[in-house]
């Protein structure tokens, strides 16, 4: 985790005119988490005064291979080149922060980890031999040690600012690891599961989005990933036994943007949440469930 005095703070104190070097790099992802940084509105220019952005391909032609005081990493590792590059990047920084579900959990593309990657490739590309990619899409932490992570798909701008602020100030970043339900109740959102019959992953998902989906009348689909000690099995059992949902439908609920993180991963595997090529997920007939 982040050291007591963050390297960022140390870099600042070393000379007040020296700004810590910030890098933003991307692997297999949609760019949404980097865009969250560009979308910071009021804080963006203020942040550029406190950090020297030395590498951020989407925003600047200034490039740097390192070293960095802080490196934000978006995206999952999906090719052999990426697997090598992340190892090189790890050596370039004392503080590697993964941002977003692709980097922290493998992302939606990690669903292919349940299938055969060659089938995937052939299904999409007419000449699959032209594409060099790994059989798995994996989170950064499967390859190198990670110092901090921002969850979400995309990450929450408030949490991004909190992380960067904590680096400047030297305090522990306030990224609570609790269920979405706490935030729902604080903001007076009516529980879509209890009152609406929606399947909702909120109780087992980490907060951070502000309880967005329930506030907008639909169930949480877990894009911030499982929270600490998430009892996914208990929720899955309730959805099947009490609410009568088909196992495959419950499996698909967990087969989302953070499917590859435990305990969601085990639920997907056990309940059959991912379709094999040409085969319906879980096999057998499944109930219509428009609210899944």
């Amino acid at each position, binding site marked *: 985790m982040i050291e007591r005095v963050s390297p960022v703070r140390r870099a600042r104190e070393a000379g007040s005119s020296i700004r810590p070097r910030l890098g933003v790099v991307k692997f297999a992802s949609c760019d949404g988490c980097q*865009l969250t940084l560009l979308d910071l509105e009021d804080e963006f220019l203020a942040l*550029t005064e406190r950090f020297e952005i030395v590498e951020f391909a989407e*925003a600047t032609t200034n490039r740097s291979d390192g070293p960095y005081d802080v490196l934000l990493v978006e995206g999952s590792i999906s090719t052999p080149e990426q697997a090598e590059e992340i190892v090189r990047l790890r050596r370039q920084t004392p503080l590697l922060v993964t941002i977003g579900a692709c980097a922290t959990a493998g992302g939606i593309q990690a669903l*292919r980890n349940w299938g055969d990657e060659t089938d995937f490739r052939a299904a999409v590309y007419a000449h699959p031999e032209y594409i060099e990619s790994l059989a798995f899409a994996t989170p950064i932490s499967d390859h190198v040690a990670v110092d901090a992570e921002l969850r979400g798909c995309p990450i929450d701008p408030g949490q991004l600012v909190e992380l960067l602020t904590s680096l400047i100030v030297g305090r522990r970043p306030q990224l609570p690891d609790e269920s979405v339900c706490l935030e729902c109740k604080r903001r007076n959102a009516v529980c879509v599961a209890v009152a609406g019959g929606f399947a909702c992953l909120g109780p087992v998902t980490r907060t951070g989005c502000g309880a967005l989906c329930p506030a907008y009348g639909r169930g949480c689909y877990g894009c911030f990933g499982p929270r600490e000690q998430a009892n996914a099995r208990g929720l899955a059992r309730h959805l099947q036994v009490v609410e009568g949902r088909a196992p495959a439908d419950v499996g*698909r609920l967990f087969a989302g943007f953070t499917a590859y993180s435990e305990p969601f991963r085990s639920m997907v595997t056990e309940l059959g949440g991912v379709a094999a*090529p040409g085969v319906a997920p879980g096999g057998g007939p499944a109930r219509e469930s428009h609210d899944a």
Partner: protein
Amino acid sequence: MHDTLIPAGLDAVFDVPMVTRVEGEGSLRLRVRNGVVEEARLAIFEAPRYFEKLVVGRTPDEVIDIVARICGICPIAYQMSAVHAFEDLFGVEIDPEVRRLRRLLYCGEWIESHALHVYLLHLPDFLGYPSAVELARDHRPAVEQALLLKRTGNRLVKLLGGRPIHPISVRVGGFSRVPRRSELEALRPELEAAVAQARATLDLVTTLPVPEYEREPRLVSLRHPTEYPFNDGRIVSNDGIDLRPSDWREAFHEEHHEGSNALHARTADGGVYLLGPAARVALAGEQLHSLAAEALRATGLVAHIRRNPYWSIAARAIELIGATAEALDIVDGYRPPAAPAVPWTPRPGVAAWATEAPRGLLFHRYEVDERGRIAAAQIVPPTSQNQGAIEADLVSFAPHVLDLPHDQATIRLEQLIRSYDPCISCATHFLDLSIERR
């Protein structure tokens, strides 16, 4: 057009590392033989994520959530193409107010995307800065204006969709929640200011030094009888194509080229074509919002926008005026619909539709099985459709820069590429420039 010829006999390789200030990762290699540019190859090395496979077995509402993740800048475009495809197949009639809200949502995305591109990605090229951060040191008001416009677009999307990136409320049949009138009205002052900011943007870009380079590309976009195209319209070109939005495959197809992770789209006869703001302004300009149409007329740039890719920056500014003005109109006329969404049942068959992402026409096609699940999918992003035209333009433009120092050549070529606002994560499918001279 410069008539600078490369010295005869010059063979060279140009290698420029990843093109920056585009969305995603790609490289360009130019091959020059005997002073003639033979080939420009765009190699997308953005890692593939196989979305068309990931949606197999999922329900339509799950597909809407998933395809947003194809792109962080234009997630709504993906959600719109998908949701309209399903509603077309299932015979769902959405409430007219819901339809207006969808246009409003698209306005928000266009505002955010165009403001991002014009100011943060493209403008630095014209004024000689490596990024908007350095640009801000000398032109802070301009960058602040950009951030305000972007914020307005994001706030619109956030109100309707829950959050600006990967919205959560789009559902088959409508939305999971619709805003209260008071919530939309609260955005009114900001939208009014945004119209003025959009106008100021157009004023700014018309003063920029724009490289001279012209050609007559084949242009493709949606066109609708009464509205500037977002979610609906026929697929048209400037050479006779005219199709229902679900019939894209009748005139176009995809090919896979070696060295690229992206599929290239071509017309039936193997030709390249261009989508995006310039195409829309050229083909659907008559349906521009009156404020935008008037502003366009005043610039006198109609022909230039069609012929010179660098002038796409003005096309985006025009569309900014249109989107902000239309957003204001929609807000003023809004009455909440009777229900946020209408009920629907799936039908088996082919669901296909095209909508206009900020970068151009985006086509989705899904085969739906008897249980209402996806059996196969085809998603054709605008950038993969533009790739062929971009490469062709690079081939014809490159001679003008080969005699420049490598750095400057790179800048000019990257500036050209940025004119198309490529969204490489979408195409998977930008830019390492390498020029092979042999």
